[in-house]
């Protein structure tokens, strides 16, 4: 057991995966000597060599497309996209190639590619450095999409992603990179199945679903709600494709109320699918319409406005009030 930041926990997961399998290679911009702009790959090039931790030319389609070729040859490439907003030049290779090659070849070719993406806001950055593009990928058949919220999960999940024979988008909550916690690096890889959600806090009055950076916010909200006598069950999804709906459904059947939160824009986001699927599964158990507490349908705003964009504890509690039928900001507003 060691105390690690989330970024170090990923670093140690990468190191372990590279130790275990010589076919694991890392590709990305500035991941070598610099160790990545967030230092997630710190020291790896030194220890594994420049042929396994590869600083690539500055081109995202190039990184992903090269990884496809390496996967064809039996490698397990791990690509780093420097920031969320820089994944789009690689979108075609991800959506038309990485996602579809297994299907296209009727199973003959595997694409065990992991694409690491530091994502989300809250770090006061300039444009393109705070986005949450996960829904694009969750809506793409053939990809798996996961996001960690704490160091222990981060360590195991990056290893699970690399071990998975399917392509995995691995979203790293960049504003939580510096969160520290105990990490047991000896835990078995299948301590929990990839794709399974986690009850981060048990509760009875309403179910609060979050993932990645907002899990901590959700837990804080649960603590605050408890002070008001409301018992929130917080679910850390961990996986967005697939979503562990069995766990969410079981919770909502008990609580009858659902609030989902994410940073990405609301419309057509992850929350919409959760609301729709849970309504379908729990129609007769729902006491109120599911609520979404999300970013607005605007481009990610400049740093001085991000507090108004990002879901926070108060906005979550306001939505909890709404599903609980308590007075809230919209009471009597018909909005």
């Amino acid at each position, binding site marked *: 057991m060691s105390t690690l930041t989330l970024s170090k926990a990923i670093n140690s997961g990468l190191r372990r995966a590279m130790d275990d399998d010589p076919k694991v290679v890392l590709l990305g911009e500035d991941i070598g000597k610099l160790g990545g702009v967030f230092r997630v790959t710190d020291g790896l090039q030194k220890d594994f060599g420049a042929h396994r931790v590869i600083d690539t030319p500055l081109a995202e389609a*190039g990184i992903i*497309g090269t990884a496809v*070729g390496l996967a*064809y*040859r039996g*490698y397990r490439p791990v690509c780093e996209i420097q920031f969320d907003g820089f994944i789009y030049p690689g979108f075609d*290779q991800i959506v038309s190639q990485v996602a579809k090659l297994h*299907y296209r070849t009727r199973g003959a070719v595997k694409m065990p590619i992991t694409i690491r993406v530091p994502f989300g806001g809250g770090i006061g950055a300039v444009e393109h450095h705070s986005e949450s593009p996960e829904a694009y990928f969750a809506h793409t058949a053939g990809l798996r999409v996961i996001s960690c919220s704490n160091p222990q999960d981060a360590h195991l999940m990056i290893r699970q992603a690399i071990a*998975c024979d399917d392509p995995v988008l691995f979203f790293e909550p960049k504003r939580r990179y510096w969160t520290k916690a105990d990490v047991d690096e000896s835990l078995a890889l299948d301590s929990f199945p990839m794709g399974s959600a986690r009850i981060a806090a048990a509760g009875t009055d309403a179910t609060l679903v979050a993932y990645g950076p907002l899990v901590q916010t959700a837990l804080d909200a649960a603590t605050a709600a408890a002070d008001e006598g409301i018992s929130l069950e917080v679910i850390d999804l961990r996986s967005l494709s697939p979503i562990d709906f069995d766990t969410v459904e079981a919770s909502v059947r008990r609580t009858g109320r659902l609030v989902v939160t994410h940073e990405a824009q609301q419309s057509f986001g992850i929350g919409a699918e959760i609301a729709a699927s849970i309504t379908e599964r729990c129609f007769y158990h729902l006491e109120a319409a599911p609520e979404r507490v999300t970013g607005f349908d605007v481009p990610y705003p400049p740093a001085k406005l991000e507090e108004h964009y990002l879901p926070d504890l108060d906005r979550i509690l306001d939505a909890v009030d709404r599903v609980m039928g308590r007075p809230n900001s919209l009471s009597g507003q018909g909005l």
Partner: protein
Amino acid sequence: MTAPGEKAHPEEAKLLQLLDADGRRVPDPELERWVEDVSTDQLGALYEDMAIARRIDVEATALQRQGELGLWPPLLGQEASQIGSARALREDDFVFSSYRENGVAYCRGVGFEDILRVWRGNSGSGWDPYSINMATPQIIIGAQTLHATGYALGCQQDGVDSAAIAYFGDGATSEGDVNEAMVFAASFQAPVIFFCQNNQWAISEPVGLQARRPIAGRAPGFGIPSLRVDGNDVLAVLAATRIALDRARSGGGPTFIEAVTYRVGPHTTSDDPTRYEDSNQREDWVRRDPLARVEAHLAAAGFFSDGFRDGVKAKADDAAARLRAGCHSLKDPEPMTVFEHVYSSPHPALERQRARYTQYLATIEGGNR
């Protein structure tokens, strides 16, 4: 703006050539040493390959016209580019092609029915890529050039002397992916060959719209040596590809080959070139036919006997017959295969849809609706 239909880059540096349009050997000391071992016999074999590729292509076009295929992208006119390059490859080299390289697939030993599977609409791929070391043809223009580069990087890391070859068209050179592939290949000195068949057209767009200068001139600026070869000269293409492969195998990095040829047929069976193509231009190119010149050469060498001609024709007809039979032998895929191979292990959302659709089909068949 370039006027469509104009002959692109005619004034530019001449093409590497070993057999001219009339089948005469053109001396080129640099090039010819790479094909010194090619006997008349072997030239005959290349001719046979081209004839079979053409015959298969014609048959597939006919199958499409008869409604057996949804679409077919003819290679007519590009036989020398495809056979010359494919026959230079070793079995352990790996091919990443576009949709038009059925002559290459033939050389790789593809099953006849497997050539048609995709075009009949039966599946997304015809063959297991590893069975013939050739990836599933790529439809997204240019994307495969990066895959070839990555694969080559893998060969390099594995310490083997296999190479990857990417086939793509003149139009593809405008896509970002192709340029990024050159950047990566140069940077890592990957053993990859960029084989561009400049067939003068990207559907209706003439090559002059994509490139103001001969395409082969682009690679050196990326640090990649290039060759501009007569793509209708099977010997020259063979030699050029061997040069490139030799460089790749010996650690010399990537090579770019522009094979200058012509798309004599339509872009695909859905296309109508009369809307944009100057028929004189096509006539010009037909006179530079890749088979005719070898025929003339072999005839001059006394090799093109009736027996040889009939033998080739018989083999080509046999191939066509097998292609046709292969086509008819293809069974429609089972409905539930629509859910297969999306993931390598179950994905709950999809499993739920599969279960529901199974139930739905059962209900339909049960006549409930």
